[in-house]
Each structure stands twice: as structure tokens, then as C-alpha cells.
């Protein structure tokens, strides 16, 4: 079977486009796909949920930028935080995994060091049924795009330096 290509930066977004601000992950993934369409070292994957199969994609990547909305943050706040693989992977669900558990699963299954990873979140104002973002999230989109661009370029640069 054809293996996923070696990727210097994997952008991994999740969210449900029918649940208002939860759809911001797929929206930003689409933006990143277009922004880096000419760069084959960047691979963008958007899913409704992160499932165990994505561990294989992570194992083939030099760095990972996770993108998700956050119900625990102030609506519209954009945050970038480093992600480490969970030391012990417990209480796993098969329908949805968090970023840290996905890194851990990739490490355990593919016997590879987890790649440097960051999680970009945008605080959700509403995750009710709907296809329109809240005002807070709409206003935050330009800064989120800028941060994605900076982070991806930095990850590509660091990946080149490590080679």
C-alpha cells in the first residue's frame, strides 16, 4: 500500500462544520491548504474527529500543527501551545483522540520519536447547530491565519535545519 508521503509539516484540523464555531478547524484547514498549495512539504488534513488512524500520518511527519476550537477559552481568543505525547495513554476512545494521545499512539505503534507539535486553538462562542461563526470567532480569523502561517513557516525552517 502506498505510504503517506514524508511531510515536513502536517496540519491536522478537526471540527464539525454544522456546529457553528466548531467548524473553525476545517475552515482554517481550507485556508492553510490554499496558502501552502504550492509547497509539497506541507500536508493538510481536516477531519470531523481525530481517530487512531491519524497516528500513521503523524509518524511520517517532521512536525505537526493541530488546529481545533476550544470551549474552555475566551470566545475568539487564539492560543498556540506546545503539545507533548501523553506519557501513559489511558482511557482511550476509538472515535476521538486529543492531540497528546495521538502523538503517544504514533510513538507506541510506529516506534518513532514524536515530532515537535503545537496546538492552535480558538475559543468558541457557540457550538450550537449552525453554519455561521460567532462574531468573536469571525473577528479572530485573520489573526489565526497569521499565526498558522508563521508557525508553519517556522516548522518548515526548523525541519530544514534538523536535516
Amino acid at each position, binding site marked *: *500500500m502506498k505510504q503517506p508521503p514524508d511531510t515536513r509539516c502536517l496540519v491536522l484540523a478537526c471540527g464539525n462544520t454544522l456546529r457553528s464555531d466548531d467548524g473553525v478547524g476545517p475552515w482554517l484547514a481550507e485556508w492553510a491548504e490554499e496558502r501552502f498549495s504550492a509547497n509539497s512539504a506541507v500536508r493538510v488534513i481536516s477531519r470531523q474527529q481525530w481517530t487512531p488512524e491519524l497516528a500513521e500520518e503523524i509518524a511520517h511527519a517532521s512536525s505537526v500543527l493541530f488546529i481545533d476550537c476550544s470551549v474552555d477559552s475566551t470566545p475568539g481568543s487564539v492560543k498556540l501551545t506546545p503539545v507533548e505525547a501523553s506519557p501513559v495513554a489511558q482511557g482511550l476512545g*476509538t472515535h476521538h483522540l486529543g492531540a497528546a494521545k495521538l502523538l*503517544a499512539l504514533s510513538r*507506541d505503534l510506529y516506534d518513532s520519536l514524536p515530532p515537535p507539535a503545537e496546538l492552535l486553538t480558538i475559543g468558541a462562542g457557540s457550538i450550537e447547530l449552525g453554519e455561521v461563526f460567532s462574531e468573536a470567532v469571525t473577528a479572530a480569523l485573520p489573526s489565526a491565519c497569521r499565526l498558522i502561517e508563521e508557525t508553519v513557516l517556522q516548522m518548515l525552517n526548523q525541519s530544514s535545519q534538523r536535516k
Partner: protein
Amino acid sequence: MSQTITIDPVTRLEGHGKITIQLNDQGEVADAHFHVTQVRGFEKFAEGRPFYEMPSLMARICGICPVSHLLASAKACEAIMSVRIPHTAAQLRRMLNMAQMVQSHALSFFHLSSPDLLLGMESDPELRNIFGVAAARPELGRAGIGLRRFGQHIIELLGNKRIHPGWVVPGGVTEPLAPAKRDEILAMLPEAYANVGMALAAYKQIADRFSQEISVFANFPSNYLGLINEDESIEFTDGALRLIDHRGGIIEDGITANRFTEVIGEAVENYTYTKFVYYKPLGYPEGSYRVGPLARLNIVKSMGTPKADQELAEFKQLATGPIESSFFYHHARLVEALYGIENIERILADPQILDKHVRAVAGVNRLEGAGQIEAPRGTLSHHYKVDDNGKITWANLIVATGHNNNAMNKGVLQAAKSYVRGGKFTEGALNRVEAVIRTFDPCLSCSTHAFGQMPLAMTLLNADGEVVDTLIR
């Protein structure tokens, strides 16, 4: 004083359910029920919609087997249109169905059940998951992911989406297979064969350790229903249904989709939203039966592909007649996954597979239509009635979990009687009661058309109905 045990939620299932175990005054298990606790009502939502929208609407019932609903719904629509779809479209749909069956069986075996099988029913529940499997047998964890990717990627190649592809439409499919996509699928086959071979070898290595579970995991005589071809080989997309008894004798054969409701009925119990499906001539509950991988392998005489036929011959050595223990659903699932890969290879070798004629077009020519297929979990039927404008006036779906409902409940009771002693249960005992349900791989969202979180839970009640113990994960 009698007591009741509740397992709520039951974990590692597709959907949300719970188990209650009723104890008598002596602390022995008197009764047990598997409850599916949420309702959705898709049939009602469908009323008033144009019939040609139904496949894509019905696919939204489930993210695990949307392809099954797509296909059963499209077939019901084609009965309304009175069309026969082009040969190539039929072949492409078969391939799509096989891809879904392979990925779904991989999910059931590797992600949901292999923690019990490889790590043990009594192993640390915190590690009894795919992470535990990754630590103990990483090659099997990778095989599971590889097999899932194989099926999902074929669905994506054919339907342009991994979940809820809109490619299947009434009359056929929206676009033919491109040569590059055919070649990409062919290139994936060797790894898929290796992965399923590894799973079969691992299963056979450990199955003997579970003789006690085999003896009490829904191990009782029952009837079996499934699609079969005229040459008595296995069938998932076309053919007609055969019902056999516990000795292997044919009760009824040639049940086509338009005869389905003549012979199949649905009963209701007050403790669950899932209906109990039964064979009308035998009545309820005597006419209950099992569907899915175990039933299909019990019914057929051959798989129709060489590697799977070798595995079927070995499988049938497990008993002289139908194999009764639901523990063997795991084994049957792997044999079917192997068949699915072989069948995909065979379909791709069809000289007409790249033909561009893949869709028949027609309007309403009948006011009623039904379609039936084999979903990964068992027989799935969609039945619609429309008005002269093609708007749905009535819809009924009968899904695998409804067919298996009686057997699942009897199986829970059998296992509870074996593992709950003196009004007490250990975590390992609890896990075994849950594991009986997992053998059937039920899809609860489909069966009630449920909405919400996935897991399942357990409660112990005394004779007065008071909760004396509960386990929620």
C-alpha cells in the same frame, strides 16, 4: 432480597446502551437486559422528502456504515423507479460495499475487541484499549490501522469522501472508475492481504485461551439469516435471503426485498428503543434469529474466492452444524475481511470495470419499493412508499442490531449467570458481560437511530428494584 446490576455505559460499542442484571433473593441472576436508551426517528424525518434524496439522507444515520444505508436506500429507490442498474455500476457498488465491510470489521476486531483478546478479559482496564495493544503487539496495531486505511481509502477514491460519500445515487453511481484509481487500489492489495493474514494468525493463536467464554458467550441454538447467491456462495449486495435453523436446515429461501415484510416482523419490549425482529411464521420470540458474519458463514456453502474458501473450510470444522457461540463472530469477521479483499481484486479484473455507462435514469414507476443488502453487522432493509410526485409518505428501516436483539439479550443473560456470583461482580466479570455484546458489534445509533455519546453502562438491582451497584466507565 433480590438485586439488580447495571452496566452503564457499555464501552467499546458503536452507540449508547446499558445492561441491567436482576438478582433474586438468593443473589443469583434471575434476568438480564440490554437497553438501547436513545431514540432518533429517522423514518419520520424522511416523510415528505423526494425519494431521490433518500440515499444521501439515510447515509447520515451512521458514520461507521453510511455505505450500507446508501446502498439499501438506493436499491429501494430503484424498485420505485423500476430500473435495473448498469453492470459496471453494480460492480462498483459491490466494491464500495466490500471496502466498507473491510474497514468496519477492522475497527471491530482491532480497535474494539482485540484489547480483550490479546491482553485478556482480566487485564488492567486502564490499559485494555488500543494503546495497550500498541504496547503489547505493535505490529497488530499497525495492521489494524492499515486495514482501516485500505477500506476507507477505497471509499474515498470511489466516492470522493471517506464518510458519507454521495457517489451512490438511485440508478447507479455518479461517475465511472478512472484507470488511475483502479491502479491505486490494485497497488494497495498486497499490504491488505498481509494485514488480514496477520490478524487471522493472531486470532487462531489465542482463541483456545477463551474456551470458557466460547461456552457462554451467546452459545445457544438459534436460527440464522443472510443473503446468499444461487450457487450458495456468500453475497452482500444482491441475491436473496435464506433463513436456516440451528441444525442447518433451510426454513425459508429466496426472500427477496419485496417479500421481506411478508415474512419479517418487528416486536417491541418496554426496556429498549431497539425493536426485536423475527420471522413471522414462527412468531415472536421463537422466530428470532441472528445475522452478521457468524450467520452468513453458517448459511453459505462457499465464499466464492480461493483464500477465503480455505478459511471457511477451517471455520466450519468448529462444529458439525451451524457454529452457535457468538464468540466466533470475531473469527467470522476476519474470514469476511479476507473475502472482501479478494472480491475487490476480482471486481477490478472485470473487463468492463472502467465502462462509462454507470447510471440509469427514470422517474416514479411504482409507489412502493424495498431494498436489502448485507451491512458489516448483518442484514439491512429499507422500505419506502411514495406519492405520485415521488415524495416519501412512509419509510421503514430494519437494521442488523434489531435482527440480533433477541440473541444479544439472551447472550447477556447467559454470560451474567456464568460470571455474576452471590450478588457480586468483579471488573473482569463485568467486562465479559460487555464483551458478549461486542461480539455482535452492534451499531446502536442505527438501531434506534440514537444521538449522543457512544459508551454503555451496568446496574445491579435487588428484588425490590433498588440499585445496589452501578459501574460507569
